[in-house]
């Protein structure tokens, strides 16, 4: 039987119940390798592993702060194509950011455009 490939999850969180609880949960998931936790600041990027993770999870009380926006941007610069999940306590939702690199051709651009679901406003 083929071994299940493990997902390398880069975790950023503040030292709080929410961060601790996610570490607790994720460290028990069999196919997840937890990298971190790293502190919630842009400077933490210099200590990141060379091997790119599969996904980054940013956990904070408020997921909309300028610090987190800066960290998201730095992570994408450091690991192009990295998927990032931002989870806050203010709303009961998580935001998933994904990116990929494609050749800069019209065909690819149109494919990307057409792969997006049209919004309700435009359909009207």
């Amino acid at each position: 039987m083929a071994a299940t490939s493990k997902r390398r999850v880069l975790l950023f969180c503040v030292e709080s119940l929410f961060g601790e609880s996610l570490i607790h949960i994720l460290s028990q998931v069999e196919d997840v390798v937890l990298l971190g936790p790293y502190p919630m600041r842009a400077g933490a990027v210099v200590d990141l592993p060379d091997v790119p993770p599969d996904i980054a999870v940013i956990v904070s009380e408020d997921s909309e702060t300028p610090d987190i926006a800066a960290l998201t941007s730095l992570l994408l610069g450091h690991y192009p194509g990295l998927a990032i999940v931002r989870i806050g306590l203010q709303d009961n939702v998580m935001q998933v950011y994904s990116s990929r690199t494609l050749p800069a051709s019209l065909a690819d651009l149109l494919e990307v455009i057409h792969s997006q679901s049209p919004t309700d406003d435009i359909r009207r």
Partner: protein
Amino acid sequence: MMRKTNPIRVLLVDDHALFREGLAGILNAQSDFLVVGEASDGLEAQVMAQELSPDLILMDVGMPGCDGLEAARRIKWVLPAATIVMLTVQDNEEKLFEAIKCGAQGYLLKNMRSRPMLELLRGAVQGQAAITPALAGRILEEFRRLSRHEGLTAEGEALTLTPREQEVLSLAAEGATDQEVAAALSISLYTAKSHMRNILAKLQVNSRREAARYAREKGLL
């Protein structure tokens, strides 16, 4: 043989599913805690509290529909012995005081670490207040503030009696009637009664006996 104590049975109430599940994981990893139920709003919490009779209800404050404070109030109404600790992201004094008035045994912030939280929860089921020293300090400060304001009127003015009113109240405190007060101070009966009415109004009491006691306690005489 050492007797194994029963774990603290916990009902978790929070609309943030991921936080709730994570917290359940932390609690269940302790040998002396057991999460027996999870609710996502205040109404569900009321039903589950009655069904499960948990030892401890750990409840968020801000939830859609019936919030944690209202749920705490209602749960305490039907289950007065319930131990409820609020766990919230809101570092808000008004909510803190409201939670205490609703019967909560504690008020903890979600930005705290798990170890101190667990210690405070263990204490809460023993009847101790589950509150961090920082929040306890705010409660004491509020009491001090209220104490400073006790000698003030509703408008915030210092509560003082005029020298004549103090004379009238001193005599009344010794048992003098309005007529005796009038005679002693060489004023009309009408004026003596008028002073007494003003004294009762200022001190917000209903009788001269209450007025005398209150004035002595507050050092107004």
